[in-house]
């Protein structure tokens, strides 16, 4: 138990996207669940190989857009019909065709904002501290190296066995990550 607390996980280094993808598939097949992979660019299928299937982000963006559109329309309706009815060019107070451009823009505004902020929130960013940064080699995750992390809190994790398992996957190196 004490041994586990000292270790955040084991980080295996690969030099090709196919290698880390294959390693992730085999680690998942071997029963590991608390894993993550770090790559210098998006690798297709890697998130799925780690057991991640859907993101709620599209729903968040849809709701953001609907909220923005409703807010824009409600604002215009309140301003032009309820609070400050003013006859302009003989048009009705509720001249909805003239409201369309603004409602469109507020829809896009809130949808775009929720896409970016939603992505950051779901990803847990900003995150100033993360244990993987302790590994000096990890700086290469933003250059040309691909990493697979198996966390120590994975029920199947064992410092020795997991290390051997990762080495057998063809890792160029396996590093201990301190918490």
């Amino acid at each position, binding site marked *: 138990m004490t041994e586990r607390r000292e270790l955040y996980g084991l980080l295996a280094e690969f030099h090709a*996207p196919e290698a880390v993808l294959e390693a992730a598939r085999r680690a998942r097949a071997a029963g590991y669940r608390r894993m*993550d*992979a*770090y790559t*210098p*660019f*998006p*690798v297709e299928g*890697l*998130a799925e190989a*780690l057991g*991640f299937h859907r*993101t709620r*982000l*599209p729903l968040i*963006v849809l709701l953001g*857009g609907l909220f923005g559109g409703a807010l824009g329309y409600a*604002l*215009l309706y309140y*301003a*032009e019909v309820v*609070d*400050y009815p*003013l006859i*302009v*060019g003989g048009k009705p107070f509720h*001249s909805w065709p*003239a*409201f369309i*451009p*603004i409602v*469109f*823009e*507020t829809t*896009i*505004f809130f*949808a*775009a*904002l929720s*896409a*970016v902020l*939603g*992505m*950051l929130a*779901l*990803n847990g*960013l*900003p*995150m*100033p*501290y*993360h244990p*993987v*940064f302790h590994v000096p080699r*990890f*700086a290469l*995750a*933003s*250059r*040309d190296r691909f990493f697979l992390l198996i966390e120590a809190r994975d029920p199947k994790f064992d410092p020795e066995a997991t290390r051997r398992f990762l080495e057998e996957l063809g890792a160029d190196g396996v590093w201990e990550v301190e918490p």
Partner: protein
Amino acid sequence: MSEETRRAVEVATPFDPRTAILAPGHTYASITDKISALVLTRRTPRGWFLGFTIAFLLLGLLLFTAAYLLATGVGIWGVTVPVGWGFDIINFVWWIGIGHAGTLISAILLLLRQPWRTSINRFAEAMTLFAVACAGLYPLLHMGRPWLFYWLLPYPNTMGVWPQPRSPLVWDVFAITTYATVSFLFWFMGLIPDLATLRDRARRRFWRLLYGFLAMGWRGSALHWHRYETAYWLLAGLATPLVVSVHTVVSFDFAISILPGWHATIFPPYFVAGAIYSGFAMVMTLAIPLRKFYELEDFITLKHLDNMAKIMLATGLIVGYGYMMEAFMAWYSGNPYERFMIVNRMRGPYAPIYWALLVCNVGVVQALWSSRVRKNVKALFAIALVVNVGMWLERFVIVVTSLHRDFLPSAWGMYYPTVFDWTMFLGTIGLFLTLMFLFIRLLPVISIFEMRALVPEVAEASRPVSS
């Protein structure tokens, strides 16, 4: 062509900058090192200091003009009855239009799966952002009392009034604000993984902290990439209708009015095409010196310039169609005022500007039909400059000729820009270039992570047939 023959052909022909979008032999590491070195390790070239100094002096001109304007009033400009919209609206539309190419490259070409956008999207997006900043200055400073700009926004106030949304000028406020925000989000989101790269490469503590702060702890997790890509595609899907709507709304500023020459249904598509046209001209104007002085020919190849030239030609033809339809509808409508407007454009006091714009925008660009011209970097640079000028002249003609002679000859007048109109215009160019120089110095001008993703594709294409 079958897959095998395609590969065989590509093997037979070594790197050809006219067809390849990335020089072969590049690895993830070489791309990362080369682009991040521009910011981190390479000595700042002397030309950068020279260019930045000139740009900064021009920016000083803008500050001087703006200060004098605030102290005195818009009377220092040449705008007066009957031409109440002079350089401020001309330049506003010109700058906004330039911005549109950035969004087109980053959003529309992404949705169309055009991999060649990768090496030009970052600085095109930066260009968008800075062009919108320049554009936004004009309506603000034209207000007369810019410190009350917040009256444009709908908020509950003690005056008991609200903005009037049946006017296209209020639509503009929302369109430009949204456009500026979404452009920034797109640009910044694209930067996050690259900021992490700079954080991991920077040697000095200050820069490591700064880039690290901006990268927000990005570590390239597969799950993060998954959501990141989803968000990026959604953002592209949102920015695409947005960019069309923005210049449509800008054209509504004219088209919703009842002035001859402005009240035309062709305005929205014709303005959007013109915006993309001038924007690509500006991307070309920036890309050609950039790839030369920073030796980025491996990344921004002749293929990119060729593609951009083709888009310029296509949008230039749409713009030419717009000019033709303006003249045709003026004649076909049978409306004497419409007819007078077009005759006045062609033969009135501003006729030389009208003919100059036709030469620039419709005439010169026809040279791009020739593939030899499209592969000649110097010729492309010259044509791009001509189109920049031509599109500015177009806005001058649209704004001034309709206003200066309206329905009553007794109300006619002439518009002459003053020296402060010119210093203001030069000043915004200074602002644009200053921001651009700072951007080139401090942030990666090419998206590093998207270039890395191109490596396997390029390697795949040049692999020998036998393997």
